[in-house]
């Protein structure tokens, strides 16, 4: 009766472990990780632009700067390193760039979630090989022990073959268990986490919208500065070479505006993909749906790779 139960349990687990399901989970994991990395990079670039803007303002206003007196104290061990900063000689504060730590943490969490799901959904074949090998080694070792206890090597070859065959069968069952165990856990985690993932991807998708506004307006700002210089060059009778250089710069900067606007809102797609996985987890998605989701996510990953390179 016990063996019947295990056969049924194994069959049920195998039935749930369609490669398409794990493939979709892995694709989702990779896409979520890439989306997180892309937005983290955009937040980091925003931070750099803020620093450049603050420094540009200080230069334009010809503000005198100096190292803070606290820097001298660093010669004594135990002094606070963070107090050694650049200060304005007029005593006013230097504006600090914003880091948006909670958005950064949320990106990191979504990326780590994607990575962990990918890891758990990873190819069972890897486990199969490792587990079978371990069991075969164990069987051979046990056989060696038996032979030593018997005080002879007789029948060792027969025993080894028998035990190795047994190990392969047990290994196979172990792999089936691994596959079932992975899928069961994946389903549980995906269904449980969906409300948070939907909230997070909605929030990060809006953050992408705000970042796009900052990025496009910054790129247009650069083009507008060049336009002002071009106007001045023409009005002051600058030579054709100088005018040509500024025109070429303007062409390049408008190309950057177009490129910046091409950044896709990947988080909306990531949220949608997670919702599809929930559907698949509760049995509502067909194999075709899952395959389509793998292709969709693979295309998204390719776009994200290109977008990050363009940043």
């Amino acid at each position: 009766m016990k063996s019947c139960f295990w056969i049924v349990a194994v069959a049920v687990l195998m039935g749930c472990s369609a490669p398409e399901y794990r493939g979709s989970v892995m694709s989702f994991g990779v896409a979520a990780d890439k989306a997180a990395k892309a937005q983290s990079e955009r937040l980091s670039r925003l931070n750099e632009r803020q620093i450049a803007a603050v420094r540009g303002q200080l230069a334009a206003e010809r503000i005198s700067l100096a190292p803070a007196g606290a820097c001298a104290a660093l010669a004594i061990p135990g002094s606070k390193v963070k107090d050694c900063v650049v200060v304005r000689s007029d005593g006013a504060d230097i504006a600090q760039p914003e880091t948006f730590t909670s958005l950064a943490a949320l990106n990191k969490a979504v990326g780590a979630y994607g990575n962990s799901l990918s890891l758990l959904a990873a190819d069972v074949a890897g486990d199969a090989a490792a587990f079978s090998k371990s069991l075969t080694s164990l069987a051979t070792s046990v056989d060696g022990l038996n032979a030593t206890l018997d005080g002879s090597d007789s029948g060792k070859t027969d025993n080894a073959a028998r035990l190795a065959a047994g190990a392969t069968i047990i290994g196979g069952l172990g792999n089936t268990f691994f596959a079932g165990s992975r899928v069961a856990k994946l389903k549980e985690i995906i269904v449980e986490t969906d409300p948070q993932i939907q909230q997070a991807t909605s929030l990060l998708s809006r953050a992408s919208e705000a970042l796009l506004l900052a990025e496009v307006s910054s790129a247009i700002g650069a083009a507008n500065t060049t336009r002002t210089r071009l106007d001045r060059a023409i009005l002051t009778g600058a030579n054709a070479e100088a005018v040509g250089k500024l025109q070429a710069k303007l062409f390049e900067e408008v190309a950057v505006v177009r490129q910046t606007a091409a950044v896709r809102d990947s988080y909306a797609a990531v949220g949608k993909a997670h919702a599809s996985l929930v559907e698949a987890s509760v049995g509502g998605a067909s194999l075709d749906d899952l395959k389509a989701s793998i292709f969709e996510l693979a295309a998204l990953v390719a776009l994200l790779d290109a977008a990050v390179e363009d940043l």
Partner: protein
Amino acid sequence: MAKKPMSNWGTWQQARNTLVTSLGMNMDALNDSALASAERTQLGKNIERTLADMQEHALNGLRMLDLEAADANLAALITAQSKEAKREADRIKNATKDVQKLTKLVGKLTELVGLFGGL
């Protein structure tokens, strides 16, 4: 840079759309103006101001979302589930390692038995 609370994302989007429309109109008008005209200078200033407003509006949006992310505590909840997935993956990996450890143990026992047998 103080954090300004905003009512909702729809309001933010409406304000963004207004700024974008205003920028586009000023850019078109500048392109139609005479190069040395006072109108062009004024339109150039309008564009700069609108671009600065767009930057500030983008930061306001991010501030609002940063607060929302902090309040929802989403990062901690998602991280907990990531750890659960990682634990399960490790558990499966360790199952293989346990068999390997057992193999080593049996190997050592064999050596010991062989050693005593030889005495």
